[in-house]
């Protein structure tokens, strides 16, 4: 007598699936974090730290934000229902900020500046404000990896930017269109996602960290602009282009 798929079968199957998921999930997590670490290593500006956590738009200053946020998860879920999924919660490593929201993965899930989370935060830790006045962070271009700084014309970042011409300065020359992001940048990270280089050539750091590294970063920028053609040729063909080519091969992950 063939009863087909009985209840017992169903229980067995569900137990098997559940068990497999339980056994498999740690490997899943470990694999992914390992890959994330690898990408971090291969990311742009490896010498510059993000310098803290990048909050959702409209966040109060760090200390006030920490005291007001009750980590209820409204912003996380609002971002999810808006289908951007940019906001995650801070892990246990940073115990002082544990459970509070931050923008985790700008390469895949940048903030789209829809301004829904500050509008709906029930605690007032995120304050409602205009899109132009957001100060999430500051996007920095890695001049060694950017196509526009290495003999190419690429406008991907400026096309993705919601502020557009306000933020991008172009120093067109023989070595490409040479984009530079000025201080009007709000740090949403859309350019990070739409950079065509494997692993992106743009990194978003906090405003505080930008204050620390600003002298060295602008000095490098000015040095590159003032450089003679011969020196520039050596840098581009000697160091940068091999790097760029390698990234195309190494970083396999598709962007989402």
């Amino acid at each position, binding site marked *: 007598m063939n009863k087909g798929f009985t209840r017992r079968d169903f229980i067995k199957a569900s137990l098997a699936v559940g068990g497999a998921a339980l056994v498999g999930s740690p490997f899943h997590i470990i694999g992914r974090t390992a890959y994330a670490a690898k990408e971090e290593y291969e990311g742009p500006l490896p010498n510059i730290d993000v310098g803290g956590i990048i909050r959702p738009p409209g966040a109060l200053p760090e200390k006030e934000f920490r005291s007001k946020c009750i980590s*209820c998860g409204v912003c996380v*879920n609002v971002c999810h229902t808006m289908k951007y999924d940019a906001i995650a919660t801070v892990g246990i490593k940073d115990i002082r900020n544990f459970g*509070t929201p931050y923008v985790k*993965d700008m390469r895949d899930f940048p903030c789209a500046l829809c301004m829904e989370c500050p509008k709906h935060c029930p605690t007032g830790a995120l304050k409602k404000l205009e899109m132009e006045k957001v100060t999430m962070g500051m996007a920095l271009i890695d001049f060694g990896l950017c196509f526009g700084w290495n003999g190419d014309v690429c406008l991907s970042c400026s096309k993705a930017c919601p502020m557009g011409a306000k933020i991008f300065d172009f120093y067109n020359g023989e070595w490409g269109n040479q984009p530079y992001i000025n201080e009007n940048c709000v740090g949403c990270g859309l350019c990070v996602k739409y950079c065509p280089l494997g692993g992106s050539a743009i990194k978003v750091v906090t405003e505080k960290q930008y204050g620390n590294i600003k002298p060295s970063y602008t000095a490098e920028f000015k040095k590159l602009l003032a450089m003679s053609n011969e020196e520039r040729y050596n840098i581009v063909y000697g160091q940068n282009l091999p790097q760029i080519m390698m990234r195309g091969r190494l970083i396999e992950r598709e962007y989402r």
Partner: protein
Amino acid sequence: MNTDKDRAEEQKSRSQESGEKKKKMPLSKLRRFVLLGIIILFLLQFLKIKVLVGGLSGSLAVWFVKLIDIFAYFESLIASKDFTLTAFLAVLPIIGIYLVFGRAFCGWVCPMDFLFEIVDGFKNWSKVKVKASPKIGYVIAAALLITSGLIGVPFFTNYFSHLTNFFRFITGGVFFALDLPFEPSVLAYSGGIIVLLLVVEYIFPRTWCRVLCPVGKTYGLFNKISLIRLKFREGACGECNLCDQVCYMNVKIARHIDRSSLRDTNCIYCGRCAEGCETKGKLVKIKLGR
């Protein structure tokens, strides 16, 4: 013949009884419907249906009304030492709701109550064993408020709250399944807190709700002024003490049965006493108003 007649009569009376029961849903069932309904409304947010967004410590109803748990509000207020109108407007509707329903939050909305009942099912419910006074909870709540004021972080709500961690766990699990950005450590931590509470529940039944939980204690204060109360009908009490024994929260009901009503800060209006009463006509009832 005789026996058949008796049986028929019995059946008749039984069917009448069941008919009466069908008219009014038993409170224990209604309670579960309310709770599961609210949780399902929260789960709908992952299908992008914006009825209730967030969690029970803070949420957004119908994409418009902001809501904050009262204890979370006070913690945030003391931690930041700064009055925010947004947060105040968010806590007002909750205060309004529980001025009517008192501590019914614990019995009707809190998801831990449901989980605790499942854990209770693994062993026979016996009378509450831990004799600690429920007043300890107020000391703990005050200590938590002072701590959050000192460290400048809503201490309980951010780290240990069962409400926050329950919804954090669900969100983390869903994001994990959908391969969205989340921290594995947050998922593990919040799951750990929930499991810890369930283990505590297994060893010391209902000690968390009755003695420790500061959220419940805050709502308990509302019991003194809320519209809802335990009402006693006049009648001959059989003094079986079933209402006392069946009570999760160790409220002494039989002792006060001579009064017309009872307001106890520990009562969660779950209705177990009303269902447990064996006297004909049920002496105990939950009622709104006088």
